[in-house]
């Protein structure tokens, strides 16, 4: 089923996305590395570490799979904190919620708080995303 498209008005403050668990498959990480032009043997071995920006992007992917923001929405800022390395093949869980909604100079914005946990329950990454959203529903 395709993800539901949400507008600014659809998002309630504090709304929690359903948590999503996913495995960082070698081919998924490899596709990411190819896209950003980051290569080398260190990223391709069986005990390789997932680049932290890939962890962030794939966490967001797991959220996009459930809910997608209205077309034309743009990311305005991104804070990330990398807390622990994650190996290729590990299964992680992503949790996110709407932390803030605000309107400035006619632009509607939402802050999404994000955290990723490893299988042991340790937080491996935290993030905060500010997105400018269009009102128009498609």
């Amino acid at each position, binding site marked *: 089923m395709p993800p539901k498209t949400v507008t600014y008005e659809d998002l309630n403050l504090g709304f929690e996305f359903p948590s999503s668990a996913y495995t960082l498959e070698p081919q998924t990480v490899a596709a990411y590395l190819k896209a*950003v032009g980051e290569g080398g043997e260190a990223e391709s071995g069986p005990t390789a570490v997932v*680049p*932290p920006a890939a962890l962030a*992007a794939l966490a967001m992917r797991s959220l996009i799979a459930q809910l997608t923001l209205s077309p034309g929405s743009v990311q305005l800022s991104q*804070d990330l904190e990398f807390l622990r390395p994650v190996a290729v093949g590990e299964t992680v869980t992503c949790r996110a919620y709407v932390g803030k909604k605000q309107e400035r100079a006619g632009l509607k914005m939402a802050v999404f708080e994000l955290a990723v946990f490893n299988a042991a329950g340790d937080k491996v990454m935290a993030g905060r995303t500010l997105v400018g959203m269009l009102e128009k529903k498609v």
Partner: protein
Amino acid sequence: MTGEPPDRLTLTKQVTKEAIRLYAEASGDFNPIHVDEAFAAKTPFGGIIAHGMMMLAYASEMMGKQFGESWLSGGIMRIKFKGPARPGDTLTITAEKQDDEVISGKRYLKYALACQNDKQLPVIDGQMLVAV
């Protein structure tokens, strides 16, 4: 990391339509502003633009190569997206050392991040910190 931390880091990347398409597939982010020429032409950007997270990935790659494990388990990024990166742009990403910052009693090396296109227009800026 051994020795003194560098005062300046730099990395150059080329933005291509193919890289944007590959990033959309890898990230699952098919926002039409990145992949639909007709849609993007009608937006204030006037054409497709790269995902902001691509530039963030370039900056993280630069820090990861320099600081290794310290970046993986003690890196912080505070990024503002300032302008679009378009297919054909050559991006120059730089990090300039600033005074250290202490967060919750822990000392971090701090770098000012800048990413510009070949017209010297800002694409992203911000700060990157790494625990020492």
